[in-house]
């Protein structure tokens, strides 16, 4: 790591108490287990793993939407959970989130302008014209038009909606954006456009991105470094090239092997792994 860390996560652990049906023995589920890493300013850290590995719980804690059982989240040297409620509120404009589902995450009854402007309440009072300007600026950054502010979510395609969600995340001019499976619901051609947009934002605005995905191909496209999660633990982290080409952990290798690529086409290649062929 060369530059200063924008975000540092130290020994994060999150336990959930599970109530059993009969109300007797309550079990504890450790969703995130002693996870530590740092993200350099202006870089993209990919987090990859399968369902239930704790990726989204990790994202919620970093966004301060949930508290860890143990550990801390340090943002520009400040421990988020040590901040007062007011100071944390001020801080929230520095980290924003883009969710997976571009249909579920935009309120269908609100115009785009209102949706995109929503995080601005974190930043204190703005005049009406300042708000309009900020909305226009955010929409233009993601390749939409300022006039789109007057339209409604149903008038946009899935890819455009995800651009709107990104505009909403960018409007507070955050330093960190967490994208949780932000391209998973999109068609391939649209997915490529959104990835390109995120990479452009990184280059141009020095945006730092925590990019969560189950898709190794997508992670390789966008991430400078990648961490692999399995059963709540961060089992491996390193430069994307190293992790994907020389995995240290058996599970990472298994993930890489399971992902279909066009290097092997057809059932013969597929079945060659089986003795009976």
């Amino acid at each position, binding site marked *: 790591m060369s530059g200063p860390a924008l975000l540092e996560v130290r020994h994060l652990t999150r336990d959930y108490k599970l109530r059993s049906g009969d109300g007797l023995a309550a079990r504890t589920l450790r969703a995130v287990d002693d996870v530590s890493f740092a993200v350099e300013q202006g870089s993209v850290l990919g987090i990859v793993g*399968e*369902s239930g590995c704790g990726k989204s719980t990790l994202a919620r804690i970093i966004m301060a939407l949930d508290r860890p059982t143990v550990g801390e989240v340090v943002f520009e040297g400040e421990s988020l959970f040590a901040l007062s409620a007011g100071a944390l509120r001020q801080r929230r404009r520095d980290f924003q989130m883009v969710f997976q589902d571009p249909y579920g995450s935009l309120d269908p009854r609100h115009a785009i302008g209102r949706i995109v402007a929503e995080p601005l309440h974190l930043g204190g009072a703005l005049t009406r014209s300042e708000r309009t300007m900020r909305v226009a600026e955010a929409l233009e950054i993601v390749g939409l038009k300022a006039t789109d502010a007057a339209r409604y979510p149903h008038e946009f395609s*899935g890819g455009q909606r995800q651009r709107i969600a990104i505009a909403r995340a960018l409007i507070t001019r955050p330093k960190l954006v967490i994208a949780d499976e932000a391209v998973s619901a999109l*068609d*391939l*051609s649209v*997915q*490529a*456009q959104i990835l*390109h947009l995120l990479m452009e934002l990184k280059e141009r605005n020095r945006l730092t991105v925590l990019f969560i995905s*189950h*898709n*190794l*191909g*997508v992670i*390789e*496209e966008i991430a400078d470094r990648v961490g692999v999660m399995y059963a709540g633990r961060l089992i491996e982290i390193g430069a994307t090239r190293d992790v*994907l080409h020389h995995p240290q952990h058996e599970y990472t290798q*298994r*993930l890489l*092997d*399971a*992902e*279909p*690529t*066009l*290097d*092997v*086409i*057809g*059932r013969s*290649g*597929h*079945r060659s792994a*089986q003795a009976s062929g």
Partner: protein
Amino acid sequence: MLKVSALSVDIVGSDGVAARIVDDVSFDLAQGETLGIVGESGAGKTMLALAIMRLLPAIARPSGEILLGGDNLLALSETDMCAVRGRRIGMIFQEPMTALNPAQRVGTQIAEGLILHRSLAQREARQQAIDLLERVRIADARRRVDCFPHELSGGQRQRVGIAIALALRPGLLIADEPTTALDVTVQKEILDILDELVSDLRMSLIFISHDIGVIGRIADSTLVMLGGRKMEQGPTARVLRAPTAAYTQSLLAAMPRRTRGSLARTQEPPR
């Protein structure tokens, strides 16, 4: 075994205006062959599958010909079609959670077709359900047969979905995005199972997916769809390595480099 000729599907709105969502699609499927159908959302993939099963919504009007072993499915009565569904064509759906009845044990759901179509007694049907669960590699099938869907993982539920589709030994399986909701390691297991079934039982398989990597892995031949139309069709290796349609080329170019594999050196993603 299956011959689809000039199949079109129109959706007729309340104003009488028709929208063509499947447009003049033709293909042949041989016994024991796997056909992959690939395309993005709205390409008409699912409508094509539903047309073959005659499960289209009431506002949809199919035209053309779907010949299954000599019978034109579009001309069959609903009663005759009921004998085709399950017995001659099995269907596997994307969402293993919603495709299964949450209130019924999985064994009961697998046995339903056997009791209805084959007039098997409860006990025999149960034994066959257990055999089918073993066939789709569910460990401890004798115990799992009495589970409810919520007690199973996503991958196990999809295996149950395959067992149901398989129960009456249909000659043709149609799988609509069967692994899209699953993790990659589980997806690999499901693909292995489907592959084995097709080889061992000489079944034909129509495998619908938006995922070119998955299609490349399982399909003998591949049909690419866009806007209801067939863009191209051919042996999978030819379609994916030397596509003739501009749309197939742009789809391949949009794939992440890793998934494109060796193709990555020759094609650059769109700007």
